[in-house]
C-alpha cells in the first residue's frame, strides 16, 4: 500500500468542526436551550432499596415559579430500557420514568419543573417522601442467593429468553462451548485457574448528560440531546411515553464525548415528560455527581479463567466464566457479558476446546452500561493476565507465547461466532511494539532483575487484544449523498459524531470516490426528521458500517453523474473521463458545477443516492500493547514509564484522528489499571461520585503514549479499513499488571493497582522470601 494511492483517505485531515468546537462556538446542547425552557431537577433516593409509599408534593407546588412536581403516579407506566440498541434486542424493559421502587442510592423518585433553577431547587427541598426501606442487595458475588429481590414488579418485560431468574436477581445466564473443554483441559500438562475483578469505571466524558425538549411547529415532541443513539432515542422515548414515533423527533448537536455512556439515555425522558405533559420547553442537565452516580458505568466483573496449555505455551483449552454486575437496571448487560469471552478466546486460536459461561445479576447499585470495550476490556484483563501467568510459569517470553497462539488469516474463529479472519497484522504489531519499547533489552524473566534506584525496580509487560467493527447482521445504517446546486456535495448521515470525527472521516471517504477535496463534502447530522436511519455511534461501527454505506452511496452517485454527463454531452459513458472537477470526452466538457446546476434546474431526477449497509461480518481490529513501570517496594507506588501501542485497524482512514483515538484509549486504559478506584459506602452509596474522589489520569500521571500502526487490508472494509475506537482501551490493564509482576514479582488481579494494593501484595510476599 503506497502512500499516494489515496487522495482523501489515509491522510491527516482536520475535523470538519475543529474551529467551532475549539473556539467555543455555541454548538453543544447546553448552549442552545430556549430562553423560556423550564429547569428540570430530580429528587433522588437516599436509600439503596426502598418502596415509595407516598410523595408529599403540596408544599413544593406552592413555590413561586414551580410548574409541576411529578412522582411515579403522574408519569406513564410503560416499562422500557434506557439502552440504545437495535431492536428487537435483549435489553429488559425494567425501567419507568419514575418508579414506585428506588433501586439504588440516587434513583429518581420525583421531578420538579420550574421557571428558574432557584425555584426548582427550593421546591426539591420541600418534597417529603415516605419510604418503606428495604434490605438492599449490594454484593454482586452473592446477589443470586440474596433474599431481597431487586426487581419484584409484575410488569417487567424480557424481550426474549436470556436465561433470567428475577427471584434470584439473575438477569441473564449464558453458556456456549466449542469442542470439549473438560477433556482437553484434563489432558493438558499445564493448568491454570485464576480469578480477576474489574471495577465499575466511569466513562467520564467531559460533557455531562443534558437534553432540552420542545414542541416543534408540527407539535412534535422534539428533543435536542447529547446522545450517541439519536434514532434509538426516538424509539425509546416514544415507548416510554406511549406515543407514536411519528410524534417524536430527536436532534443531536455537537457532543462533548460519550465513550459509551451516551449509548444509554440519561436526561432525555425527564425533559421529554415535562414537555409532553405541560407543552412547555424543558431542560434537564445532570451535574457531574449525577452523571457519575445516577447514569451508568462500566459493568464490574468477576472473571474466572481456566487455561490448559502444552509445555511449549500453546493454549489448548480455555474457559472464561464471567459474573457481571448489572447494577439496578439491565442496560446492555446481557450483551456486554458475551464480549468478555467472544473477543478474548479467539486470541488463543489453538484452543479449539473452549467454554464460556456467564451470569448477569441485578444489585442495588449504580447501573452498568456501555463503556468503550464493552466487556472485551474486562475479559482482556482476565485472559491476557492468565496468558502472562502461563508465560511466567513456563519461563517463556510473553511476546513469543502470543506468536504461538494468535489467530491466522483465512481460518474461522470458532469462539468469534465462526467468522473467518480476513485481515490481521498482529504478528507485525508485536514485532514493532517490541522494537519500540526495546523489549529484548528490557525484558528479564526474573523479578527484581532491573533495579533502578534505592528500593525501585523496573519491569515490562505486554498484552494483545481484538474488538469488532460493528455488530454482525444486527446494526444497519443508511446515508444519502447528493450533488447540490453550486457544485458541492451534501452527505446526510444518522451516525452520531460525539467527538470521534465520523463526520470528517465519512466526508473523506465520499471525497475519495468523488475525487474532490474533503471540504467539498458538507456533512449534516443528526436530526431524525432529515437524516437517514443509523443505529448510532457505538460498537466501533461508524468507520466500518457507516463507512461502507457512504462508499456505496458515493459510487452510486458517481455512476448517476456519469450517466447524466453522458446524456448532456452526447458522449458514450465509456468515453468520459472524470477528474473530480469535470467530465470530458470527444472534446466536450461538463463541470460538476454545471451538473449540479442542471440537476436542480433541469433534470427529471435529482442527482442523489441513498445506500444502506448491514454487515454479515464484524472484522476485528487488533492491538499489541506494551508497558514499562517502576515500582517502589517501600511505598508500593507504580510509576508508569512507558506505554506503547501498535494497532491494526486495517487501512487508517484519518491518520491524525486514529492516532489520537489510540492515545486516548490507552490513557483511559491506564486510568483503569492504576488510578480509577471505585468505592461504595456500607449503605451502598457510590462515594467515588466526583472528580474529587474518582481519579482521572492527568497529564502528570501518564507517560508519553507512543502509538504506531501496522496496517492490514480488510477486504470487506471501506478502503480496507476496520474499526479503531474501542480496541485501544483493552491492553493497558493486563500489560501494566504484567510489568508490575515482572518488576517485583507480585500479581495484582483486582483492579486498579493502587500503591496500597501493591504494597500489601509485596508485604504478603515478604513472608515467603527474603526482604528486598
Amino acid at each position, binding site marked *: 500500500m503506497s502512500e499516494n494511492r489515496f487522495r482523501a483517505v489515509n491522510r*491527516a485531515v*482536520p*475535523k470538519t*468542526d*475543529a*474551529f467551532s*468546537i*475549539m*473556539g*467555543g*462556538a*455555541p454548538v*453543544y446542547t*447546553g*448552549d442552545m436551550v430556549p430562553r423560556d425552557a423550564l429547569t428540570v431537577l430530580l429528587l433522588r433516593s437516599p436509600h439503596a432499596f426502598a418502596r415509595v409509599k407516598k410523595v408529599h408534593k403540596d408544599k413544593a407546588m406552592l413555590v413561586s415559579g414551580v410548574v409541576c412536581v411529578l412522582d411515579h403516579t403522574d408519569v406513564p407506566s410503560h416499562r422500557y430500557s434506557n439502552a440504545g440498541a437495535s431492536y428487537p434486542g435483549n435489553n429488559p424493559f425494567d425501567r419507568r420514568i419514575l418508579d414506585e421502587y428506588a433501586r439504588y442510592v440516587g434513583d429518581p423518585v420525583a421531578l420538579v419543573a420550574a421557571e428558574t433553577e432557584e425555584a426548582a431547587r427550593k421546591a426539591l427541598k420541600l418534597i417529603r417522601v415516605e419510604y418503606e426501606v428495604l434490605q438492599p442487595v449490594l454484593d454482586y458475588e452473592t446477589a443470586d442467593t440474596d433474599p431481597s429481590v431487586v426487581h419484584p414488579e409484575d410488569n417487567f418485560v424480557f424481550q426474549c429468553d436470556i436465561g433470567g431468574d428475577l427471584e434470584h436477581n439473575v438477569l441473564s445466564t449464558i453458556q456456549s462451548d466449542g469442542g470439549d473443554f473438560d477433556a482437553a483441559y484434563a489432558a493438558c500438562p499445564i493448568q491454570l485457574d485464576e480469578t480477576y475483578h474489574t471495577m465499575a469505571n466511569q*466513562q*467520564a*466524558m*467531559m*460533557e*455531562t448528560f443534558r437534553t432540552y425538549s420542545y414542541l416543534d411547529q408540527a407539535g412534535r415532541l422534539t428533543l435536542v440531546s447529547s446522545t450517541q443513539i439519536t434514532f434509538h432515542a426516538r424509539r425509546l422515548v416514544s415507548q416510554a411515553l406511549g406515543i407514536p414515533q411519528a410524534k417524536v423527533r430527536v436532534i443531536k448537536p*455537537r*457532543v*462533548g*464525548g460519550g*465513550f459509551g455512556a451516551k449509548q444509554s439515555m440519561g436526561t432525555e425522558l425527564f425533559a421529554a415528560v415535562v414537555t409532553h405533559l405541560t407543552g412547555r420547553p424543558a431542560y434537564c442537565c445532570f*451535574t*457531574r*455527581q449525577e452523571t457519575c452516580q445516577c447514569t451508568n458505568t462500566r459493568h464490574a466483573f468477576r472473571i474466572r479463567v481456566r487455561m490448559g496449555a502444552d509445555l511449549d505455551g500453546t493454549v489448548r483449552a480455555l474457559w472464561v466464566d464471567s459474573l457481571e454486575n448489572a447494577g439496578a437496571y439491565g442496560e446492555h448487560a446481557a450483551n456486554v457479558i458475551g464480549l468478555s469471552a467472544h473477543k478474548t478466546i479467539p486470541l488463543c486460536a489453538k484452543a479449539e476446546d473452549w467454554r464460556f459461561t456467564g451470569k448477569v445479576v441485578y444489585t442495588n447499585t449504580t447501573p452498568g452500561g456501555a463503556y468503550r470495550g464493552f466487556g472485551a476490556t474486562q475479559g482482556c484483563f482476565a485472559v491476557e493476565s492468565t496468558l502472562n501467568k502461563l508465560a511466567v510459569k513456563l519461563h517463556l517470553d510473553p511476546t513469543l507465547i502470543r506468536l504461538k497462539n494468535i489467530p491466522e488469516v483465512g481460518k474461522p474463529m470458532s469462539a468469534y461466532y465462526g467468522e473467518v479472519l480476513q485481515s490481521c497484522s498482529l504478528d507485525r504489531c508485536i514485532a514493532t511494539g517490541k522494537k519500540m519499547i526495546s523489549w529484548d533489552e528490557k525484558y528479564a524473566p526474573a523479578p527484581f532483575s532491573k533495579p533502578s534506584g534505592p528500593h525501585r525496580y523496573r519491569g515490562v509487560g505486554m498484552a494483545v487484544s481484538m474488538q469488532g467493527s460493528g455488530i454482525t447482521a444486527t446494526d444497519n445504517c443508511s446515508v444519502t449523498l447528493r450533488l447540490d446546486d453550486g457544485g458541492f456535495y451534501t452527505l446526510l448521515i444518522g451516525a452520531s459524531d*460525539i*467527538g*470521534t*470525527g465520523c463526520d470528517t472521516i465519512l466526508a473523506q471517504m465520499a471525497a475519495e470516490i468523488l475525487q474532490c477535496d474533503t471540504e467539498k463534502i458538507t456533512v449534516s447530522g443528526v436530526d431524525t426528521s432529515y437524516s437517514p436511519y443509523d443505529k448510532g455511534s457505538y460498537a466501533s461501527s461508524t468507520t466500518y458500517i457507516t463507512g461502507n454505506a457512504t462508499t456505496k452511496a458515493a459510487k452510486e452517485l458517481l455512476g448517476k453523474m456519469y450517466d447524466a454527463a453522458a446524456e448532456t454531452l452526447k458522449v458514450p459513458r465509456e468515453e468520459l473521463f472524470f477528474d473530480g472537477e469535470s467530465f470530458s470526452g470527444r472534446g466536450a466538457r461538463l463541470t460538476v458545477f454545471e451538473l449540479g446546476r442542471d440537476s436542480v434546474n433541469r433534470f427529471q431526477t435529482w442527482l442523489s443516492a441513498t445506500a444502506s449497509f448491514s454487515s454479515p461480518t464484524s472484522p476485528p481490529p487488533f492491538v499489541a500493547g506494551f508497558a514499562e513501570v517502576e515500582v517502589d517496594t517501600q511505598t508500593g507506588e507504580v510509576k508508569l514509564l512507558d506505554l506503547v501501542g501498535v494497532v491494526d485497524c486495517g487501512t487508517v482512514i*484519518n491518520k*491524525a*484522528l486514529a*492516532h*489520537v483515538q489510540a*492515545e*486516548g*484509549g*490507552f*490513557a*483511559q486504559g491506564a486510568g483503569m489499571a492504576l488510578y480509577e478506584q471505585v468505592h461504595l459506602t456500607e449503605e451502598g452509596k457510590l462515594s467515588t461520585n*466526583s*472528580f*474529587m474522589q474518582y481519579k*482521572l489520569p*492527568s*497529564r*502528570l500521571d*501518564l507517560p*508519553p*503514549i507512543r502509538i504506531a500502526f501496522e496496517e492490514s487490508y480488510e477486504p470487506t472494509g471501506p478502503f480496507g479499513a476496520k474499526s479503531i475506537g474501542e480496541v485501544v482501551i483493552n491492553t493497558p490493564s493486563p500489560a501494566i499488571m504484567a510489568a508490575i509482576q515482572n518488576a517485583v514479582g507480585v500479581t495484582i488481579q483486582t483492579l486498579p493497582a493502587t500503591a496500597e494494593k501493591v504494597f500489601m501484595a509485596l508485604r504478603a510476599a515478604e513472608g515467603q522470601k527474603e526482604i528486598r
Partner: protein
Amino acid sequence: MTLTFTLNGRKMSQEISPDESLLSVLRRCGCYSVRSGCDTSNCGICTVWVDGHAILSCSYPAPRAEGRSVTTMEGVRDEAQDLMTFLAEEGADQCGFCSPGFIMSVLAMLRELKDPTVDEMEQYLSGNLCRCTGYNSQHRAIVKLLEKRRDEHHV
C-alpha cells in the same frame, strides 16, 4: 446586585445574585465557550482570565470580579488561531468540550513563561483534564506553536 466589570475589553454591567459563580454570569453574558465540566474545581474546563491570570470560573464568586477585567475564549480567538490550527492538525480537539479552557490555560502559560520546559508545561497545564486525547496530541501542538514562535523571533 450589579456587577460592573470589563468582559473581553468591553465595559459591562450585569445584574447578578451575590452567590453566583463567575461561570454562570459569563454564560448569561453569551460567552458559551465557558463551560462546566466537574462542579468541583478539578477539570479546568471553565478556565478564564481575571486580570490576565487563569482562574477556574466555576469556583470564582462573581462579585469578586467587580472592577476587574475578565477574558474568555471569545476575547482571544485571534491570539489562539495558531494554537487551534496546530491542535486541529494533530486531531487534538476530539470532542472539543475541554478545548476552550485548555487553550486559555496554554495562552496564559505562554504569556507567563516565554520558553517553558516540558516539565513546566505539564505542571502548568495539569489542572486541565481531557478524557479524549491522553494529552500527547495537545503537547505536540504546543511544541509546534513554540517552534513557530521561535522561528518568527529569529526572522
